[in-house]
């Protein structure tokens, strides 16, 4: 069973349905014992980093997520949920993240030229640079997935699983052991996205 962490940001209906579409039972929950008992955890999110980090903290979900990550349980962060996995973000000030993957979240405008539109919104191709993480075992080089974001994760190359080219190679997916993050929305990325969710469901607990 998969626990989709509900901490009051965004609507999680499609995400829950997308797991059903790959034959996996997912619950949308903020209940700590339910999250602990789940085989895998999904951390979703839309909106601003600071607000979301604060909400996680208020419900003590930050500590729970760090403990669960330490136990080796697969965790998937999506969009803002992915950004929360990093050490900090510079979205409207400076905010601490969960620090499960080394790196910081910075404005896309820092690395791309001024004539490109921000947010980076729409379908873009994944470049794996020869890497093949188990969560992408069904994916192919150049698969298109759906992005909507104005900030990107700046992380050492060893943690980058895939990039998307938008004036610069932006981090599209990153991982540190059992903790995985997707900047794009696999639940809105058609068949290519469902393949990633299916592969994530098949990942094993580590350590």
């Amino acid at each position, binding site marked *: 069973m998969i626990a989709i962490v509900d901490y009051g940001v965004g*609507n999680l*209906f*499609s995400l829950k*349905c*997308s797991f*059903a*579409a790959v034959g996996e039972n997912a619950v949308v929950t903020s209940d700590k014992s339910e999250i602990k008992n789940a085989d895998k955890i999904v951390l979703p999110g*839309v*909106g601003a980093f600071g607000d979301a980090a604060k909400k996680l903290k208020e419900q003590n979900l930050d500590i729970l997520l760090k403990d669960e990550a330490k136990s080796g349980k697969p965790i998937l962060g999506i969009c803002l949920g992915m950004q929360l996995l990093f050490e900090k973000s510079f979205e409207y000030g400076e905010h601490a993240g969960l620090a499960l993957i080394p790196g910081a979240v910075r404005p896309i405008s820092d690395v791309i030229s001024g004539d490109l*539109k*921000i*947010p*980076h*919104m*729409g*379908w*873009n191709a994944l470049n794996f640079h020869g890497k093949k993480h188990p969560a992408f075992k069904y994916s192919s080089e150049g698969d*298109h997935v*759906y*992005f*909507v974001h104005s900030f990107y994760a700046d992380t050492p190359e060893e943690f980058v699983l895939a990039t998307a*080219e*938008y004036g610069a190679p932006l981090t599209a997916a990153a991982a540190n052991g059992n903790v995985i993050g997707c900047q794009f929305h696999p*639940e*809105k*990325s*058609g*068949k*290519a*996205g*469902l393949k990633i969710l299916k592969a994530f469901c098949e990942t094993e607990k580590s350590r």
Partner: protein
Amino acid sequence: MITKRIIPCLDVRDGRVVKGVNFEGLREVDSPVGLAKYYSSCGADELVFYDITASSDGRKLFTEILRETASGVFIPLTVGGGINTTEDFERVLSCGADKVSVNTGAIKDPSLLERAAKLYGDQCVVLSVDVKRVDGVFRVFAKGGRENTGLEAIEWIKRGVGSGAGEVVVNSIDTDGVKRGFDIEMLKKVCEAVKVPVIASGGAGSIEDFINLFKSVPGVDAGLAASVFHFGEIEINKLKEEMRKNGISARLGG
């Protein structure tokens, strides 16, 4: 790089797709859920549902249809029609919409865009504008294109984006339904004026019209159409293959 998006638009009244639909081998052609699944499988990048229902019963049916669609179609869904308040945003977002398109609602109350953007983020707020030339000036029309608001279109679009609209759908009344191509002149002006994604609507009659659109107005992010897709006059996968042959970035597959 990001691909140019192709977006079929479905007008829904009382839970059914309005405008005739003519697909061989597709049953229940007037079911929005069936049609949404079909479009998703043949390469649509996004779907727009317009609720053209007048009654509250119809509205309830619409949200049920939306929920059912969102549970089985995994591409972005934009919903428009009858969006006048942030409660309307909430109603469709909770049923699985990703973006909400506002047209007359923003004209009646321009603060709606700003309030919605604060609550749900700019990326969620789409400003939809019906534009028609009146004495050589681009004017904004309300109520499904029936009423001239007197607003100058480019200024109105700039103002909407300034208030928090994260995307603009521009429908040219002059080219709509004529099937002789998009309104290139007007779209160029819009793309020069704003830096958010612009979706072109009105006038698509052939694959060449889409190719001409993306070549003539590189700033346009997406092309939207209804009947040419519903009547099977243009197959989305074929359109995208032609786009690629012409050097326009497009996503293939479902």
